[in-house]
């Protein structure tokens, strides 16, 4: 149940919220635990809340795994 997904912050919103994106899918999340976020930060999200910031290198490792998975399964996300 404690799954967390890496995403990129694309917009900082009011009321402790931010808009994040992964593979073209955007989502509004709560930033209550990470108030100092900035646009282009990479974060991990659990159940609609940002848990922690991560480095772009770590995020890109994760994204590479996704790309490999999508390539091998023949699926595509536009």
């Amino acid at each position: 149940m404690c799954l967390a997904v890496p995403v990129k912050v694309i917009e900082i919103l009011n009321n402790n919220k931010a808009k994040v994106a992964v593979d073209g899918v955007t989502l509004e999340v709560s930033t209550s635990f990470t108030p100092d976020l900035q646009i282009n930060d990479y974060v991990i999200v659990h159940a609609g809340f940002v848990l922690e910031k991560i480095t772009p290198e770590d995020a890109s490792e994760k994204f590479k795994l996704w790309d490999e998975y999508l390539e091998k399964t023949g699926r595509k996300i536009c």
Partner: protein
Amino acid sequence: MLSEYDKIQILRDKIQKLSRSKVSFMEVCGTHTMSVAKHAIKSMLPETINIVSGPGCPVCVTSQTDIEMSLILARSENKIICTFGDMIKVPSKKDSLANYKNVKIIYSPLDALKIANENPDREIVLLGIGFETTTPLIAVTIKTAMQECIKNFSVLSMHKTVPTALKLILSSPDISLNGLILPGHVSAVTGRKYFDFIKDYHTCGVVAGFEALDIMECIYLLTKSVEENKIEVINNYTRIVSEEGNQLAMQLLYEVFEDCDCQWRGIGEIPNSGLKIREKFQAYDAKIKFNIPVMNIPEPKNCRCGEILMAKKTPPDCSLFKNTCTPLNPIGPCMVSSEGTCAAYYKYL
């Protein structure tokens, strides 16, 4: 450059070479249980290393009494029950939340507040399950409800904390563990230091991520510590976990919740292992708001989930496993939850 696959092969050979003594390592988190089974990690390890599952699947450790309380709320038509999907099929007296159209699966606990705003004439109850990763989210949701004066919202808190159950397992005379695969995302909130107490029980621990390579690295580090007679708690998930964790999330958790005694499935009551809503936020405590009667519901006959959660038995030791208890007709929560040990054994082993 080495691929993930190559690295796993190298680690497998290193573990084979290094391992001398017979050891047992426990995967504490349900997501680790699934990952170990899915990547066939056990098939890569020498016979000396035994991997057992622990009590880290929140649905699996939810007591039958708490499940029945959720159902009592669902049976009242003026309520909308919001829950994470994992809880929906857990049976109690041949009933489950899946039978009620007023039960909604949510992604984020904040979705429950949206539903409350859209349905002002109905009572919205959020089923609060989970450990330190999830409870701060529920705490923020309760605080937001208070700030926005949302009155038709409450939480049935079934939250638990990881250390108390681990202390019970580590001090149990009939369970012998040498190392713990510590939960990665719980540690993201609590920090690595939170688990230093396991050293008092002469047990090593490694905070691990959830990919096959993360788990193989963790088993290698645990094996190394044991073979070198070192008792240490290592953070091998530094890309997400820090020493101190997310202090703000922990503060918010304890601003809204406080420790209480709590029933764990199959284990029984563990003092100070649960989290109840503090008096200041009592208006959002579903147990008080709806005065739900506290009953003692026994667990299904012959179900061995409790012993499986304590690593005393494995699913094939249970007479119901694969006979009357299957993913389509689950009897105990270890088969219901997608992260339960029985579900993992059924699917992958």
